[in-house]
C-alpha cells in the first residue's frame, strides 16, 4: 500500500529556515500500527525515498497521541537563499507520497 493511501495529512514545511520537516498523520489507529511495525519505515529506507543522507536527519519518530510520523532534516540550502528552490519547503514531500508500506 502506498503511504498517501493511509494518510489524512502528508506534507513538508520549513521548521525554521534551515530545517524541513515532514508530517504524516494516519487515517486510522490500524494504519498507524501497521506503519509503526513496517520495515518500510526503517530510517535508511525513508532517507532513500527522500534522497537524503541519514546524517542530515535531526528528528524521526512516531507520535502515538497524534497517530503521526515525523521526520525533520537539514535543508540543502537555507530558505530563500540564492540557491533555494522551495522557500516555504512545502513541496519536498513527493518522495514519501509513493513510499510502499509493506
Amino acid at each position, binding site marked *: 500500500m502506498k503511504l498517501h493511501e493511509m494518510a489524512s495529512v502528508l506534507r513538508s514545511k520549513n521548521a525554521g529556515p534551515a530545517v524541513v520537516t515532514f508530517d504524516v498523520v494516519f487515517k486510522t489507529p490500524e494504519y498507524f500500527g501497521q506503519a509503526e511495525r513496517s520495515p518500510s519505515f526503517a530510517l535508511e529506507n525513508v532517507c532513500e525515498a527522500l534522497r537524503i543522507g541519514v546524517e542530515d536527519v535531526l528528528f524521526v519518530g512516531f507520535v502515538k497521541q*497524534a497517530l503521526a510520523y515525523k521526520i525533520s532534516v537539514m535543508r540543502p540550502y537555507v530558505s530563500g537563499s540564492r540557491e533555494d528552490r522551495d522557500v516555504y519547503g512545502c513541496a519536498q514531500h513527493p518522495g514519501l507520497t509513493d513510499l510502499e508500506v509493506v
Partner: protein
Amino acid sequence: MTTARGQSVRVLSPTACLGLMPLNEESFLRGMEMRPDVVGVDAGSLDPGPHYLGAGTPHVARFQATRELEILLRATLKAEIPLVIGTAGGSGGLRHIDWNLECIAEAARRLGRKVRVAVIPTTLDPEWIKGRLTTVTAPGCQHDSLLTLEDVDACTEVVAQVGVEVIMKGFATGADVILVGRACDNAVFASLPILLGFPKGHALYMGKILECGGLCLDPSAGYETVVAELDHTGFTLYPANPDFSCTLASVAAHALYERTDAARQSEPGGTLDTSGVTFQPREDGTIRIEGSRFEEGDPYLIKLEGAQKVGYRSIFMSGARDEVMIANMREIRRNALERIDEDMKGFGLIAGEDFHASIRLYGLDGVLGDLEPVTTLPHEIGVVLEVVALSQETARNIAYYGKNFITWVNFPGRITTAGNVAYAHSPSIIDVGEVYRLRVHHLLPFENMDVFVPYEVEVG
C-alpha cells in the same frame, strides 16, 4: 489584573497571518460573541525568506492588512480588549513597524477613532550586540557557527525574536493595540494569560495551536477564527464557525507543524515539553488539551535574525513545447550555463564571484532539483534563467546575453529554426531586485529584558 471570569482566560485568534488569506469576518464576529479577553494576531514570519527582513518590505497586500485591522479594531475597541500584533509588518524590523502603524492609522481613520498603540521595537543596536559579545558567545541556531562582529555589521538590521516577557510590557500601558517587532508566534497569544498567572506550559502550547488561526481545524482553514479558553489545568479550543471542528487529527497535526521535534520546542528562556500531552476531542467539535510543561532554561536565550544583501536578481521566463528540445533539455541547460560562464570572462565577470547563473527546468526538476526521483519527460517545460550579480544592471545584461543559448541553441534533430521557446513576457528580462541571505540566525544570552522599551503613540 483579572479576567471577567476569574479562573479562566479566553484568547481569540482570527487568522493565520494578518493580511494574508483573507480572514472570515463572519467567523471572527461569532468568536467575539464568546467574549475573549484578548485578540492576538501574528503578522509575519521568516518563512517568506530573508529578503523582506533585509529590504524592510511587507509580504502581504497593504489594502488587505488595513481592511483586516479595521475589522479587528472595530470589534476590540467596542469590547474594550487589547489587540496584540506580533512580528509587525511581516519581519518585525523598524521599517515594518512603521508600515504596520500606517495601516493601523488608516484603519482608525476609517473607524473615526483615535487608537492608542504601545509599540515594542525589538531591533537591536549593532553596537549593543557587539558589546554583549565581549562577555558572552551566541551559538548558531540550526547551524554550528558562533555569532561574529562581522556578521552583525554585515546585516541591514538585526531583530530579536522576543517571548512573553517582552510582550507583557505592553499591557501595563493600557493601550488599545500592542504592536511588537519580531515576536515568537505563540507568545502573541500566551502573554496576557501568563501575565494573569496562568501556567506557562499550557499558555505557550495554547499559543502554538492558535498561532495559525483555523489551520488547526478540520477542514484546515487558516482564515477561520478559533477561540481558546485556558484554565490552570489546560485549555479547550472552540471553532467559531460551526462548519468547522477541532478533531484529534487536525489539532495533533497542527501541533507538529513547523516544529523540528515532536515533543520539545525551544522558546525564549526555556523549552516547551509536550511529551505528556493528551487530546480529548468532543462531539460538539471542541477539544480539550492538557499536559504540556515549560522548563525554565539558563541562560535566557533569544534568537536573533539579520539579513545581508548579496546582490540583485534578473530572470528570463520561457516555455519549451518542442518534443525534440525537451528530450535534449538537460544537456541544453548544461551547455548554456557553461557558455555563459565562459563568455562572461571576456567582459571581466567571473562566475561564482561577480555573478551566479542558473537554469530551473519546471516540469523536469524545477522544484526538487537533484532530489527529483521521477525521470519521465513532460510535454512542456518552464525554462527559467536566473542571474544574480552585484548590480541590477549587470544581472539584467547577463540575462539578456544568456537567454540566447536557450532561444537559438542548436541541438540534435532541431527543426525549430525560428526560435526554440515561447517568451512569457515583453520585456523578456525581469528585474527581481535585491537578493539577501540570512547571515544572523543565532541565540544570544540575555540577562534581562531592559533593552526592549515600549513607547506609546496615538494614531487615527
